[in-house]
């Protein structure tokens, strides 16, 4: 497939996730489009450098945002794979320098993939006073045979803010492993949110970890998973309070529907400083009866009510 057609195919799929394709043509918007192990689109803007390196089986991108720079539009990162079989590895090394501010909109699109493994590793450093938001949305084929492994290692330095969301709610999952490892220094704020809808025989493993290493650091790890049919879901959320007046909350909500669904959640909270504060909440089960009956009392059937509630949860 030539680059033009590849570009069109990937962008067209990304549009299904709500992306405005014109963003990839807009010179004011930083963007990178990866297909397999090739970069088929790249736009740098002042204050931000995206430097790709081709790997044998994927692409590494070093991303740097200059200090005191506010990137006006979200940086678009689109990773695609258009073949049915194969392996793709992407490595993103992101450094947001002091007091810079940036938001990323990332799409991973694998519309044809059947026997396919995608491994993504993000190494993130948010320097003092910087703010970074990374929203990652996936679009897979309906084969349900994709293996996706995504690992994020993020360090947020003093006074920095980092938000990471991972969404895989619109298509089959396949086999998913999400690992997010967040270290927060003094006065840093970090938020990890994962939302996944697993159906048929999908398998989901999510592990969100927060290390509160700096005084007054604040963290939130939140996971919402809907497990349908005979899917298997395992969520392990961890928080470690190592510094005074640091706080973290971990939350896991798993909605199940299907007699063969297997869902588990495990929270781990550990404090090594007695002035730290950690809390957690977790729930597993069918959609709350009160929520269902509230909507049914307005005329929706149980199926319609369930669908509406789940849609909201995964938004």
């Amino acid at each position: 497939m030539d680059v033009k057609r590849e570009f069109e195919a990937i962008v067209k799929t990304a549009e299904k996730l709500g992306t405005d394709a014109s963003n990839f043509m807009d010179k004011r918007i930083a963007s990178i489009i990866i297909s397999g192990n090739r970069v088929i689109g790249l736009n740098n803007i002042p204050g931000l450098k995206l430097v790709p390196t081709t790997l044998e089986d994927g692409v590494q991108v070093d991303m740097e945002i200059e200090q005191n720079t506010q990137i006006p539009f979200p940086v678009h990162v689109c990773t695609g794979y258009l073949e049915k079989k194969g392996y793709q590895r992407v490595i993103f090394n992101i450094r947001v320098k002091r007091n810079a501010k940036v938001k990323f909109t990332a799409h991973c699109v694998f519309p044809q993939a059947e026997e396919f493994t995608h491994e993504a590793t993000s190494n993130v450093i948010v320097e003092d006073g910087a703010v970074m938001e990374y929203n990652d949305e996936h679009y897979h084929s309906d084969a349900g045979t994709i293996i996706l492994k995504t690992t994020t290692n993020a360090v947020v330095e003093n006074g920095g803010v980092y938000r990471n969301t991972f969404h895989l709610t619109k298509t089959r999952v396949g086999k998913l492993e999400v690992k997010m490892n967040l270290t927060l220094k003094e006065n840093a704020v970090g938020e990890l949110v994962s939302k996944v809808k697993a159906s048929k025989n999908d398998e989901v493993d999510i592990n969100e970890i927060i290390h509160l290493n700096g005084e007054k650091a604040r963290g939130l790890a939140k996971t919402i998973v809907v497990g349908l049919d005979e899917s298997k879901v395992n969520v392990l959320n961890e928080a470690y309070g190592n510094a005074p007046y640091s706080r973290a909350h971990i939350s896991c909500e798993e909605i199940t529907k299907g007699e063969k669904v297997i869902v588990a959640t495990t929270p781990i909270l550990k404090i090594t400083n007695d002035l730290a504060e950690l809390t957690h909440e977790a729930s597993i089960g069918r959609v709350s009866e009160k929520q269902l009956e509230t909507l049914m009392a307005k005329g929706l059937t149980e199926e319609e009510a369930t669908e509406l509630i789940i849609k909201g949860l995964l938004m």
Partner: protein
Amino acid sequence: MLELVDVSYKTNEKEILSDVSMKFLPGYKYAVIGTNGAGKSTIGYVIMGLSSYKPYKGKILLNGKDITDLPVTDRAKLGITLMWQEPARFEGMTIENYLTLGGKLSVQKSEVAEAMEFVGLNPNLYLKRFVDKTLSGGERKRVELASIILLKPKYAILDEPDSGIDLMSLSIINDVVNYIAQYGGTPIIITHREEMAYSTDYGYLICAGKVLMHGKTKDVLNAFRNTCETCAHPNIPETNELRK
């Protein structure tokens, strides 16, 4: 007409409602009055047909048709709805989506906006907000009232609509109740507060799961004030003055 005929309900072998008979006529406003624990909310849940509230005896009739075994959705489609004392919260669901039932309720955007304004919520500020815990108790109830306006039910059961809200919201509730009656619907207010029941036409006084009396709201409220509010043994019928 919505009618309860000798309805009895128990849970864990405890009798919650005993031979309750009530009639609600179209276009009139009703109050179901009683102290806390009298069984008022249970009456609402039984009428709505909630899954854990199936009567073991008696019938619920709607225009003469037995609806006792109908599921919640079917009753709603026949024009019955319920506003819970503490309405459920929905993470990620916008107020707009909630009010339009995800687009399944056929209403115009302008009607949604009007309903919001009716209950004192600015649609521009609220429609994109979520029906979650970021709303205060009062805001959540106003959203529920807006929902009732849009649904235009024939019978709207409002369970303690005034609990946990400010004075301003109280007048909004009255406006909604009057609105329902104006279009020919029947608001049924479940309450233990006199000021909430005042504006209704007829009342039922409930004690220990039984109807103690019914009639014009004014008379029922008198009985409630003089007997139930001063009763040293609320919801113990044997010691209740009216029962004697």
